[in-house]
């Protein structure tokens, strides 16, 4: 279990993490989702005791990371696929890590086998592809057979086979009752892997809920309506408390009313409608919706950029 309490990190004038509090529970995969620069990696480095929080605290299984007697046996982390000396072989890297905790050589070979690194284990880690680097990072995280796993963007750079492998691995580990905390900026990846989602934007927690709630919570009864009397219908719907957007001249997007209610209202008032579509938000849309005000780097569309 990972517990963050008012965790804050300020670098000079920039607040990377602004007082986040959350709990990551054992036995499930918790996704840590946010756009680039949202503070995910900083939060994870603070969990691992690498960055000192400006204020607040974070504990793993009740203790700060550095207070654990055998930290690698408690928490395994992939913070950065390149947290390796580029001139050292993968095998020697793992051997040196294992040596700090008296982890036997047999376990080093075991994690090399598990992560499919056998063929390249004796090669310099600096020559690894991003995907191989990720596998090495995951191998290092698994060395101590830890109860808690923290993986920062583990599928970044993996091929489709590797993505499926990571997904199965984290689901398997969580199934064994371990705590798995997984970050990504890809909503689609989270939708397939995580049970619980913590969404972060600009250093603040925006949502912290089971993944199901996040999908349905945002997609609540939004309905697209096309009509040739948009003004009349808009007044009618507004009178019933709905919020209405008008993306196109004859199209309304209605939030807060069911499709059936809208149809009944139109029928009563003799308004012709020629489309009535309930809109269910995908997780991707839900994510965009949640973070649209909290993205640090907005991309300009081509038209805007041209001006």
């Amino acid at each position, binding site marked *: 279990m990972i517990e963050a309490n008012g965790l804050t990190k300020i670098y000079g004038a920039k607040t990377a993490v602004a007082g986040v509090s959350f709990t990551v529970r054992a036995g499930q995969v918790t996704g840590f989702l946010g756009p680039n620069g949202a503070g995910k990696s900083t939060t994870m*480095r603070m969990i*691992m*005791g*690498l*960055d*000192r929080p400006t204020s607040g605290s974070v504990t793993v299984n009740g203790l700060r*990371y*550095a207070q*654990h*007697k*055998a*930290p*690698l*046996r408690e928490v395994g*982390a992939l*913070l*950065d696929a*390149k*947290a*390796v*000396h*580029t*001139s*050292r*072989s993968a095998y*020697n*890297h793992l*051997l*040196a*890590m294992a*040596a*700090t*905790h*008296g*982890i*036997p050589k*047999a*376990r080093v070979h*075991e994690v090399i*086998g*598990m*992560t*499919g690194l056998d063929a390249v284990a004796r090669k310099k880690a*600096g020559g690894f592809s991003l995907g191989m680097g990720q596998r090495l990072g995951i191998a*290092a995280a698994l060395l101590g*057979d830890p109860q808690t796993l923290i993986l920062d963007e583990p599928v970044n750079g993996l091929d*489709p*086979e590797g*993505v*499926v*492998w990571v*997904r*199965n*691995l984290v689901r*398997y*580990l969580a199934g*064994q009752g371990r705590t798995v905390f997984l970050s990504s900026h890809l909503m689609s990846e989270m939708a*397939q892997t995580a049970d619980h989602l913590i969404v972060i934007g600009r250093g603040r927690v925006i949502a912290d809920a089971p993944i199901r709630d996040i999908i349905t919570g945002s997609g609540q009864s939004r309905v697209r309506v096309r009509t040739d009397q948009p003004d009349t219908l808009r007044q009618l719907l507004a009178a019933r408390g709905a919020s209405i957007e008008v993306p196109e001249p004859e199209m309304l997007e209605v939030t807060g009313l069911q499709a059936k209610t809208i149809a009944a209202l139109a029928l009563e008032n003799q308004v012709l409608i020629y489309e009535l579509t309930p809109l269910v938000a995908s997780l991707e849309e839900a994510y965009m919706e949640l973070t649209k005000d909290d993205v640090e780097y907005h991309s300009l569309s081509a038209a805007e950029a041209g001006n």
Partner: protein
Amino acid sequence: MSSPTAESTSPHEPAPSFSAPVHFGGRRSQPGPTFFRVLNSEIIKFRSLLSTLILLASTAVVMVGFGALSAWGTGQFTDAATRDPQAGGRMAAQGGDLAVSAPTSGIAFAQLILGSLGVLLMSSEFTTGMARSTFAAVPKRLPAFAAKLVVVMVTSFAVTAVSIWVAGMVAVPILDNYGLKLDLGSSQSAKLLLVNSIYVAAVAAIGMALGTLLRNSAGGIMSLVGIFFVAPIAFQLIPGDFFKEARKYLPGNTVDPVAAAQHVPDTLEAWQAGLVLGAWVVIPVLLAAVLLKRRDV
């Protein structure tokens, strides 16, 4: 790729490997980092880098090479001197002095190479990102720092001592050719070997402290060169008694007073020089340790 066939044919299914965690039955009997485990880890890291081994080998080659060159030069010099009957006696005496220092004549290069190695071993942790792995495994940080310091200093001492000894073995027959005697078993030879080896270990420690403080290979090595090569020359060129006096306290000028048979004029006393070199090591190392503990990795 989430089809069942793709998953079942995946060659890296995690399940089997985890189903038999045989090595981890006695979790409590296998605690975490002890100093000797961390030291072992640092030794593995040290010996698994080709660049480190190359630097050690070049130190030995340069030391032995300069020992041989110096023995040959001393012989030539003495030869020339004996043909000049006036200066003969005085020169011969000086030739004897030079002979005893032949094995350590490459020490300036040993200190540069091994000092740079000290810088690199720590700075490369930060430039490659390895530091995140190192300090995640040893979150108290100082045991890893101390272990690395031990590895750096012991290796530097050993490589320098062996190189000086081999250089001596090579120099003896060359000097013998010119009728000069070099007794490697003499107390002065032993003293030179010991003092110079300790000195190079100290320079390596200073290098490691600089690498820790600056976290940058080029910056660390340039600082080292500044302290050991530029400052002595600059201090000599700047007029005024202050710099003349200050020059004595530079770390590079602490070896001669300690190693010399008699007191060399215009240098510190042996005990003073020892203390000054000690301070040059202890202060940066302590500063590096404190900042390493406090700063973000």
